[in-house]
């Protein structure tokens, strides 16, 4: 490639990267700005007053914070495992030609992509039928199955696991379970890792299920805690009269800098773990398209 072209592309990509990363850097800066300075001067790139108040505030609510961290970790790990297993079982089955009802089950999954039950019926099923309200399963199960990932994985299995390998395994006397875990699983690692990454992100960033199904503070995940703070601030702004009369209640809601500090704390782990998934992620996308 011509060095000039190379340079231009590098510069363009550099600018693009900067645009992507800049908001996060800004968030980090704001989290270190003193609250007084934000109220008086607004957000600044180089604040007049630095402060670590936001982080010491977060430290003061460390009980709830660690609790929420724990909840998020548990639902992310358990949820991802359950989700990957369920999705891969389902999509492996519907990808095999010897499974008679595969068309029906593919359609069943696909149908839910077009028509969903909607919020209220879903809520009724989870709270009144399954009685999951205020349990950790309410945070895990509703997100475990995802029709879109099933379709992706089905295509992946169809393309990357050839029937001949499975046949040879069957001739050697391997059971279906053994075939799945010892042959199909390793062969499809890139695809599975992609799904795992997606659902990890999904679980980590999920706050809506907690909003619906969780009243207990001890079961509130991290992102939901962040959302609550944001929503409470919004409530305060819209109901100025209430908040002025009930000042003592709202003194405990953190302001801008503490909010940003929470964003930093909530984002870091997922940002740090991303590079480990990345290599599978890239090969998952390419292999899916090229083989056969």
């Amino acid at each position, binding site marked *: 490639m011509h060095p000039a072209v190379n340079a231009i592309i590098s510069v363009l990509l550099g600018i693009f990267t900067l645009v992507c990363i800049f908001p996060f850097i800004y968030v980090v800066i704001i989290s270190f700005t003193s609250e007084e300075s934000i109220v008086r001067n607004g957000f600044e790139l180089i604040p007049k007053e630095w402060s670590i108040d936001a982080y010491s505030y977060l430290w003061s609510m460390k009980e709830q914070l660690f609790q929420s961290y724990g909840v998020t970790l548990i639902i992310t790990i358990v949820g991802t495992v359950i989700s990957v297993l369920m999705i891969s079982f389902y999509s492996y089955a519907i990808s095999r030609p010897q499974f008679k009802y595969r068309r029906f089950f593919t359609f069943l999954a696909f149908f839910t992509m077009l028509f969903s*039950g909607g*919020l209220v019926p879903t809520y009724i099923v989870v709270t009144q039928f399954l009685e999951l309200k205020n349990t950790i399963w309410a945070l895990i199960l509703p997100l475990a199955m995802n029709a879109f990932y099933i379709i992706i994985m089905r295509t992946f299995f169809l393309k990357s696991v050839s029937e001949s390998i499975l046949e040879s395994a069957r001739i050697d006397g391997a059971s279906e379970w053994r075939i799945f875990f010892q042959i199909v699983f390793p062969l499809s690692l890139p695809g599975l890792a992609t799904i795992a990454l997606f659902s990890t992100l999904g679980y980590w960033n999920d706050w809506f299920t907690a909003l619906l199904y969780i009243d207990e503070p001890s079961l509130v995940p991290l992102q939901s805690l962040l959302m609550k703070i944001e929503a409470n601030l919004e409530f305060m702004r819209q109901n100025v009269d209430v908040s002025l009369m009930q000042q003592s209640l709202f003194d405990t809601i953190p302001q801008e800098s503490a909010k940003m500090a929470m964003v930093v704390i909530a984002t870091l782990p997922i940002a740090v773990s991303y590079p480990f998934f990345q290599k599978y992620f890239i090969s998952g996308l390419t292999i899916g398209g090229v083989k056969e």
Partner: protein
Amino acid sequence: MMKKKLGIILASVLAAGTLLSACSSKDSSTSEKGGKNGEPYEIKWYTIGTPQKDTEKVFAEVNKYTKEKINATVKMTQIDWGDWAQKSQVMINSGEPFDIIFTNGTDYVQNAQKGAFLAIDDLLENEGKALKEVINPDFLEGNKVDGKLYGIPANKEVARQDVYTFNKRLVDKYNFDLSKVKTLQDLEPMLKTIKENESGVTPIATFKAPLRFDYVFNNEMPFAFPFEGDTDTVINPFDTDAAMTQFETMHKYYKAGYLKEDAATSKDSWPMDVENWFVRIGGSQPYADLLWSRSAKYEVVSVPVEQPTIVNDSVSGSIQAISATSKNPEKAMEFLTLLNTDPYLRNLVDKGIEDVHYKKNEDGTIEDLPARIESYNMPSYSLGNHFILNLYKEDPKDKWEKFKEFNASAVKAPSLGFKFNSDPVRSELASITNISKEFYPALATGSVDPEEYLPKFNEKLKEAGVEKVLKEIQKQHDEWKSSKE
């Protein structure tokens, strides 16, 4: 691929929407009533506020008392401020069985019209007799929806009164005479002095130019009854000389730099504890200055914008409603009656356990202990009758008397008790809302010239069908009025 995905998303959103709206009918199960065989009935109560650590501890005490008094226990669950609107709506729409729920304003009216709440007029005559006697009748009258009452309003200040609040340090420094302040226009000389001499202070902590009408929805929407003159005819308040005058004054202030430049769009909440403002507008109640000064940590002083007025908004600020899904509405009413008439229970629910969350002084006043702030910090306004609450040590002794005086001095708005049903003009209202959101903040903060934009605003409102909505409001108002007589 992108198109396909978009289609899928659209389709599912549509489907979700249809199902959602189809599902708002209530379930009516009143067959199995608890508490019949001598077993205490458990009352499920949802109310607003950040969940507190000691709720269980306090309600163990509450249950001891209620078991003895009304043979019932109470399970109270708090839903956080910001989550409230969405979560309570989903709970109501799903027909979840519970007994009592906090509600307010338009949510109350809509859910009552939908049949989500129980009409309690009969209960109020029997189980709630004692309750009916303590609540200011204006509350009960003003909260009737189609002639029936659907919830127990918290007995507190019944009227609303906006006040101009000033930073007292600056008032004293420049010797301003606040007794002369009656209107928005009277502020001008003061704002000028502040602008010239105080560099770190924004003279006006962003507020919208006050425009005194009895609004049908809120002060952003162009439907209101006048307080003077023909109070029975609904008009567009923005199509009046008063609006032009107020917005012009505000525009003058804006041009002079008395407001922040981004006033129309900023979401800045102007926290009291940062001393960077001179005057603001807020809803008041007796001794509000005291409360505000305490939280600001410097002194503020207020001057009324208007006379205390009883409007639909001010009577429906805090209501506990009995759900249509309640299995034992009688018990729920008994509990609400006890809560609003029994000082011991009311203070227990509000302040916590004596000597754990608060301590009582010799003169009967109370002081919060650290445990209350940390683990039982409840919003008094949402829970019920204020007049039987213990006074704090720093409260003025005549606080509740002043509240009663305030209530007595209030005038009734012409449309108090009128609840508009917006179904027939829903599409017009949707576009009018959008137009108002576009113009009102800019005009009311003076960010644009009203000479040019106010006529434009009214023109657009006309195109969107403001006349049709006014007519519908007038029709329903006349029906309501004649049904009252």
